[in-house]
């Protein structure tokens, strides 16, 4: 492409000198003038008589379309295409659409409208450069000189414009050559750009189809091939093919209770109540008893159930000589394992609570069979719990 005179530049020392020069040259050159300054100069667009930019209209149009698209799409999805109730709200709940409407409006108006509108209208895409950027004057313009440019199309015009710029007080002048009729600078190489886009799209679609047709092709082998434990498969971590290891011999797990397998009789011989019958322990025992035991064994522990007569079981009375004589460990194990139709309460009642409820059962037994001394004691003596505390 042949170069030709494209524009001439006159450099001025201050913004005011530049504006004065513009006023001098405007009658003759009008729309062929353009200014380049190191910083935005107030009132420059008025001095140059620039028309109002179209970016604002583009932004408004795209913002409105964002509003319509987001509102319309959400309305369609939530009322027609895929109805889901959210929190008992109607399908068309415009208020819940607002945040997304807002986002899409901003996205389209600012990112698409303002940025792309500016790139095309102001920055003249698909031109990716401008002759002035490679001129000698450019470093000065970005520092402290104010340039007035006149676009020209022939050597004669250039000479005339240079004279006019000097006549308006330019310190220096420069003639800049360009190639293209429209923007002067080189165009983006459209064919390679388009070819790249086409190749990318084809490669993406092709890969997608390949994966759908032959979905055994390990595209991302790293994540497909990891060693992990799957149900009913050989894990492959250990020689025996198992994924879990047995604990080291003699390991006691947390919360494990030894001697769980004892019968009540054995437990009566081997377990001793570790708690003292303090007021606090008896209170815990009472609470547990009323929660779990009372419905069947009754308020007094006499086996008079509160349940309906349709329940035909006959719960034990604690006041039988048998239960009065068995040791605490026996009662403890029955609370835990259950007996006859009584279920085991081991899962519901913690060990300390089981011992506390045994104390409470003992208290119930004593209450129905109290001696005169017990009555005197209850009438105002210090509690035996306080006296006995710590002796066990």
């Amino acid at each position, binding site marked *: 492409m042949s170069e030709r005179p494209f524009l001439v530049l006159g450099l001025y020392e201050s913004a005011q000198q530049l504006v004065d020069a513009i006023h001098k040259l405007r009658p003759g050159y009008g729309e062929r003038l353009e200014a380049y300054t190191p910083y935005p100069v107030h009132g420059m667009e008025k001095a140059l008589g620039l028309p109002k930019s179209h970016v604002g209209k583009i932004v408004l149009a795209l913002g409105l379309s964002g509003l319509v698209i987001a509102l319309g799409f959400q309305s369609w999805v939530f009322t027609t295409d895929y109805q889901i109730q959210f929190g008992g709200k109607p399908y068309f709940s415009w208020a*819940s659409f*607002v945040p997304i409407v807002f986002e899409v409006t901003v996205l389209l108006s600012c990112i698409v409208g303002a940025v792309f509108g500016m790139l095309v209208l102001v920055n003249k895409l698909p031109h990716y450069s401008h002759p002035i950027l490679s001129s000698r004057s450019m470093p000065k313009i970005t520092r402290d000189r104010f340039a007035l440019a006149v676009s020209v199309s022939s050597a004669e015009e250039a000479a005339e414009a240079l004279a006019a710029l000097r006549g308006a007080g330019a310190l220096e002048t420069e003639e800049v050559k360009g190639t293209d009729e429209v923007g002067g600078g080189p165009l983006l190489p459209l064919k390679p750009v388009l070819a790249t886009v086409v190749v990318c799209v084809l490669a993406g679609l092709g890969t997608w189809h390949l994966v759908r047709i032959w979905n055994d092709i390990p595209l991302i082998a790293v994540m497909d091939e990891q060693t992990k434990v799957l149900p009913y498969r050989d894990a492959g971590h250990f020689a025996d093919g198992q994924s879990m290891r047995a604990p080291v011999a003699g390991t006691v797990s947390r919360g494990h209770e030894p001697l769980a397998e004892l019968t009540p009789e054995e437990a009566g011989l081997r377990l001793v109540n570790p708690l003292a019958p303090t007021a606090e322990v008896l209170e815990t025992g009472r609470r547990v008893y009323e929660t779990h035991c009372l419905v069947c064994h009754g308020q007094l522990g006499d086996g008079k159930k509160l349940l309906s007569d349709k329940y035909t079981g006959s719960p034990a009375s604690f006041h039988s000589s048998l239960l009065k004589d068995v040791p605490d460990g026996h009662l403890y194990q029955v609370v835990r394992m259950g007996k006859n139709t009584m279920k085991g309460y081991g899962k519901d009642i913690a060990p300390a609570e089981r011992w506390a409820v045994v104390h409470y059962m003992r208290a119930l037994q004593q209450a129905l069979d109290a001696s005169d001394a017990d009555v005197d004691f209850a009438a105002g003596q210090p509690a035996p719990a306080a006296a006995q505390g710590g002796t066990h």
Partner: protein
Amino acid sequence: MNKSALHPAILPMLGLGALGVAATAFTDLPRFGVNWFVWSLALLAVALGSLFLVALEHLTRAHWSIVLRRVPERLSGLLPWLVPVFAVGATVGLLGGVFGWSTPEFRVAMETEHHQHAKAVWYATPFFLARLVVVFGLWLLSWKLLAGGSIKQDETRDPRFSLFAKRFSAPFMWIFALSVTITAVDWLMGMSPRWFSTIFGVYVFSGFFLSGLAGTVLGVLHLKGQGRLTEARPDHLYSLGGFLFAFSVFWAYAAFSQFLLIWYANLPEETFWFDTRLHGGWYPLTILLAVVRFILPFVLLLGREGKSDPRRLRLVAILVLAGQALDLYWIIVPELGRGVLLGWQELAFALAFTGLGLLLAKGQMGKGKDLPVGDPNLDAGLHYHL
């Protein structure tokens, strides 16, 4: 005709309105109370919003608004006149049980209901009065320091005041934020004392600041109409218009945030407040509020030209001030539980308080010079270009 004279309609408006206000006081005290709250808070919004604008300029070292600063400084001079207005409001509110929290019903609720119990501390009458006195004291002090000092600077030309104002405006922001929130809780949220919304203070603040801006716009245009303040060029008006636009959007953002979360969560203890306002006669008013406070200012000020066009700005400023009164009405009056009250009483209050506001603002417009000539940065403001 002498241009600085009072507009001939103001005094008849004020007189006629005052008659209606007095008649309301003797016939229907609760209605008098709620309308009094609405309009005294509307005047407070203009005065306090203006003072905030002044402090904001000092705090941010803004130069462009120095040219206009005398207008909000003068408008904040409404504050001392509001002391008797609020004294009447507090008396009626407490003795007449017009505050939502001072009704006998809620006094019992604070004794007996678990969730209301904690509010008894806040809504104890002595504490409320103490808050009112402290808050007004701080406002008057700030007004004296910021606006009074600035007017004094016209004569002394002492640049130390400008430094002082910049330092003082930082603590003033704390004073302002806390006092506006307290006022919002006592006078507005307290009308419906079982209700709560954590963004409510922000919502009320945005309305106050908008009112201050709108008052400033009207004041500047009024002075320009008299051939004064010719230094305020379209560049200055544009920035003021931009502020008005931005804070109309901010009000809508705060208002919608408050609504969306409460509406979506649908908790009975929160949602009833909006339920009242979205049904029956209040629903059209809710729509009107959104139109007047957000949609119209947004559309009118969206374009570049609108922000510096005096006629457009005047229209939006009037809309904003009307919207502030409507907003307060919409917050306060539904809590009376008597439906939409729009009669001669409301008209009388609107006339009386608009007249009072114009009269007071007009009186303030003579204070000091039109430009803060003592401000060392005034020159930068005069040469402000977009």
